[in-house]
């Protein structure tokens, strides 16, 4: 089967999953006490209790659940994610504005993670059970164990506030500028650390495993220098198991972005989500969770593709 076919099939397969995700989220929202109108009335003396009925009517919240869901679904398919009631905005507009910020952050986190993890893992595996290995092990463990919100706070307190090396505020110089990069570094590192630690561990384990395989001896018996053997033969095999895990890590990266965005006041979807939850802005919550679902599904898909590119045995299953 061709790669295109494979991708197509996978995407189709993921559709029900995403629908499921939306249904679950939607269901949760319905089960939860209080809706957006309650919250508007609760928070704002200008909105009088008598208004509740009128507002619900206006927002179509009085319709039966399934009807609301279907409406919403229809909208989503046509790129209209519904209204954010408390501010009468289009959810889609908000998503359009916030998503790039989050993606940028996540992407930076990933790059950071990989830049640290892969070389680190290789180094550790090659010097297994030596000092270098222990160092990387401790780093990896710490990286996994350190709560990212605390890490963020500490980095900010130390480098942005105390030493004042980094800005605490969006430089407003557009997404792709040097200042922006500068502003990205702290949150990027914060979000990337856990991922890099996880990756490094896996990189180490899988590489160490591969090194003991016979094809390595065989390659060396051919007279190839160790370097070549490791970087050509071993690395590619170890990366296979890394990719699958990398896909999983995307999920934790998404979660991470929520926290990190709050810590650094990053104007991304994560913070939007938190506010949306507090305001019970159902449409916003739905679309954001759905998006995270999409991201994760895509990540897994991507992993499978890379997996195939790395490992011919899998490729044949396309």
């Amino acid at each position: 089967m061709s790669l295109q076919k494979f991708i197509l099939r996978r995407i189709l397969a993921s559709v029900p999953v995403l629908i499921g995700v939306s249904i679950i989220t939607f269901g949760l929202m319905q089960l939860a006490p209080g809706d957006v109108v309650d919250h508007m009335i609760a928070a704002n003396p200008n909105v009088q209790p008598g208004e509740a009925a009128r507002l619900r009517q206006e927002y179509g919240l009085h319709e039966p659940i399934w009807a609301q869901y279907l409406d919403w679904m229809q909208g989503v398919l046509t790129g209209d994610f519904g209204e954010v009631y408390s501010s009468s905005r289009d959810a889609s507009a908000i998503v359009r504005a916030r998503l790039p910020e989050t993606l940028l952050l996540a992407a930076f986190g990933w790059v950071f993670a990989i830049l640290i993890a892969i070389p680190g893992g290789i180094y550790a595996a090659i010097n297994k059970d030596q000092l270098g290995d222990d160092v990387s092990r401790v780093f990896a463990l710490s990286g996994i164990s350190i709560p990212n919100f605390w890490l963020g706070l500490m980095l900010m307190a130390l480098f942005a506030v105390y030493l004042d090396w980094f800005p605490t505020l969006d430089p407003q110089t557009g997404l792709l500028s040097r200042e922006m990069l500068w502003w990205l570094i702290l949150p990027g590192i914060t979000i990337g650390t856990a991922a890099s630690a996880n990756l490094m561990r896996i990189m180490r384990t899988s590489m160490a495993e591969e090194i003991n395989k016979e094809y390595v001896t065989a390659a060396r018996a051919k007279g190839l220098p160790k370097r070549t053997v490791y970087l050509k033969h071993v690395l590619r095999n170890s990366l296979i198991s890394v990719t699958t895990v990398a896909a999983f890590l995307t999920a934790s990266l998404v979660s991470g972005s929520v926290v990190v965005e709050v810590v650094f006041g990053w104007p991304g979807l994560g913070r939007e989500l938190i506010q949306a939850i507090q305001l019970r802005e159902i449409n916003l919550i739905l679309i954001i969770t759905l998006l995270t679902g999409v991201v994760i599904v895509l990540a897994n898909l991507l992993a499978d593709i890379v997996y195939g590119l790395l490992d011919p045995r899998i490729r044949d299953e396309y």
Partner: protein
Amino acid sequence: MSTERGRIRITGFETDHLEEREPDTAREEEYVEPQSMWRRIANRLVRDRLALIGITVVVVMAVTAFLARPITVSGVTVQPFSLAPYDPTATAVGGRHEAPSLSHYMGTDRLGRDLFSRVMVGGRYSISIGLVVTALASTFGVIYGSVSGYFGGWVDSVLMRFLDLVFAFPALVLALILVALFGGGFWPLVGAFVLVGWASYARIIRGEILKVKQNEYVLAAKALGARDQSVLFRHIIPNAIAPVIVQATLSVGTVVIGVAALGFLGIGFDPGTPEWGTILDGERDTLATGDGGSWYWWATVFPGLMIFLFVMSMNMIGDVINDALDTQVDDIGGGG
């Protein structure tokens, strides 16, 4: 006796009188007594220096948290000790943001509450939730995954589809939504994290079971007409459980961080609560010193450090158990 090859025949190589040793069986899958696995873990743990440190830290933190303040269940004091120097919720036992000193080892917070006491008691929430969640999640996950893996067929595919669904949510985000919508507190948090946590156990155990399932002793047991339950619980699960144990140890840390993360986001606990994440949230303002102000570092450093220490120790233990059972479980997540 004699053998031939071509035209050659050898006689007189009599081996019968040598006491028969049974053939080397190392390479065959044999039934693993669960106890032996526990013994292996124990041996490894006491031998590994890192693990010992980890265990010590965990135990000390857990015990101090437990003994920090008296615990009364419906009026009856079940735990009379009170190691914490102050009542963690008592305001103004010291000045506002007093630096660490002999009277306040970790200084005081914005309401003059003793940080040391707060941090000490704070362990209760995170640790207990971490353990309870892990216990519940793993139990449920194991049963779910075992059923799925053991019976296979449509049961398997249905159960697995649902699993994919759960995995399509980022755990923390789902937990966050749940807690935010349905309110915080101990049990709601436990519930939320169990709901998002069980899936990975299910996946792991299923994978293992698919392997174990094929082993002789299982087939044998089946052939002898043992009931599915007994086969599953006596023969399969004990042999597939190893990676679950590793996952469990590793995920305690993940849960603790997750709980703290929610606390930090102001979801899950009331602000006054001496829970690590919540304390951090409450003291975030100390990052703002104003002009010429000084940074009350202790207010944010210590609570975070506690989370880090505990989780780190948990992970060190998990790491060692992982080696001991050499399952290649890689706990995804962590870091909140």
